[in-house]
């Protein structure tokens, strides 16, 4: 499992948090090596050098490992574990400074879409639930001007929740063109989830890029399909 993909390790003081986060991220990243390293060796609250070291080795499939941590001493344990790895493995392991849950989910999704370690780190670091990030410059809606846009109704009962949102972002990432969803970056999972799109909402998918038409059509059809949900 995890062939060709970056692995992700969740280091928490609590085994339940680390394992729960694997369950959560697994929904959106079914084929990534997601490995929990929570709690002490004795099962208490704390972090374990042995567990973190073993988790890194388990998560690695040769394409790098992103390690996300909760509180300060988890970071110290993870960085110490890195020091003890052999040079070859250490060169492709990174402790990522990001919010554990939000960043962890974003990292897992980016790994699922085939992103490299830089992309995984970048998505984790930028994933925070705050003001919705604006679409990148140059991805202005294509109203009347160059570009392409389609509006479809969201049919699934629970709206664009985590699983379909991840599916949407995965598909968006397969296209080079910049695409927006109601003005937000179609490649940002948390940005899209923060739109709070519910059943019946009109979703406008647009691209100002001349090559964006295929991407807009594919994404519009995915939304119109209801993501396989009723």
């Amino acid at each position, binding site marked *: 499992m995890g062939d060709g993909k970056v692995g992700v390790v969740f280091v928490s003081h609590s085994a339940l948090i680390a394992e729960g986060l694997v369950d959560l991220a697994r929904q959106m990243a079914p084929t990534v090596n997601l490995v929990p390293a929570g709690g002490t060796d004795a099962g208490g609250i*704390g972090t374990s050098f042995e567990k973190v070291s073993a988790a890194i080795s388990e998560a690695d499939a040769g394409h790098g490992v992103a390690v996300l941590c909760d509180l300060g001493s988890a970071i110290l344990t993870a960085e*110490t574990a890195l020091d003890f790895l052999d040079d070859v493995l250490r060169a492709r392991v990174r402790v990522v400074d990001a919010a554990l849950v939000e960043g962890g989910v974003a990292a897992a999704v980016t790994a699922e879409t085939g992103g490299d370690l830089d992309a995984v780190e970048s998505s984790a670091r930028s994933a925070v639930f705050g003001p919705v990030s604006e679409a990148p410059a140059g991805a202005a809606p294509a109203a009347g001007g160059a570009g392409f846009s389609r509006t479809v109704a969201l049919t699934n009962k629970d709206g664009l929740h985590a699983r379909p949102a991840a599916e949407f972002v995965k598909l968006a990432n397969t296209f080079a063109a910049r695409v927006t969803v109601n003005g937000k970056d179609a490649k940002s999972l948390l940005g899209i989830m923060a739109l709070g799109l519910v059943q019946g909402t009109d979703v406008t998918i647009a691209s100002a890029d001349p090559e964006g038409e295929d991407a807009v059509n594919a994404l519009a059809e995915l939304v119109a399909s209801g993501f396989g949900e009723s």
Partner: protein
Amino acid sequence: MGLDGAWARAWLETSAAVVAEHRVELITLDRAIGDGDHGENLDRGFQAALAKAGDLAPDTTPADVLKLIATTLISTVGGAAGPLFGTAYLKAAGAVAGSDDLDADAVVTLLTAARDGIVLRGKAEPGDKTMIDAWTPAVDAAAAARDAGAGPAAVLVAAAAAAEGGAIATDPLVARKGRASYLGERAIGHRDPGAASTALLLRAAADVAGER
């Protein structure tokens, strides 16, 4: 004459005893501004290191003992103290590797490497209310004592006294690193547990050096 492997072993034994003796005190300090596990974790780590010391060769060097302590603390201490003290002992071991006769200069080198290792790992600066507030005055005092012509045991005595002063001086500080940093001004009036344990460990080093 300098400090040898027997000194390092005695330091480990006394450290384990002193940490066990002060376990509750360290837990109490940590409970006030941290997560309350410092005494327990450090005690478990040093007891584990003590148990492994029997495997050391009779002609073991100080670096061998320090490395044993380092790897044991890293693998058995769950809190921040494991990686921080573990890195300190590891860097100290590297700094005096191969020597079985540590003079005053070597002791300063050992202490400096330990302090630098903790800074590297934890990124704390003096005044952040961390163990660095005990380690840095200890290193400075050790260097001053060496410059004044002190022997290795006297260098350690100077370091221990400065660490004790540094630990006390953390009382009025607001923490800028670690769990205590979440408390803001509520950390004022409490001693940093890592600075307190640093002072205990350096005092143990001085005591066993003085007996030799």
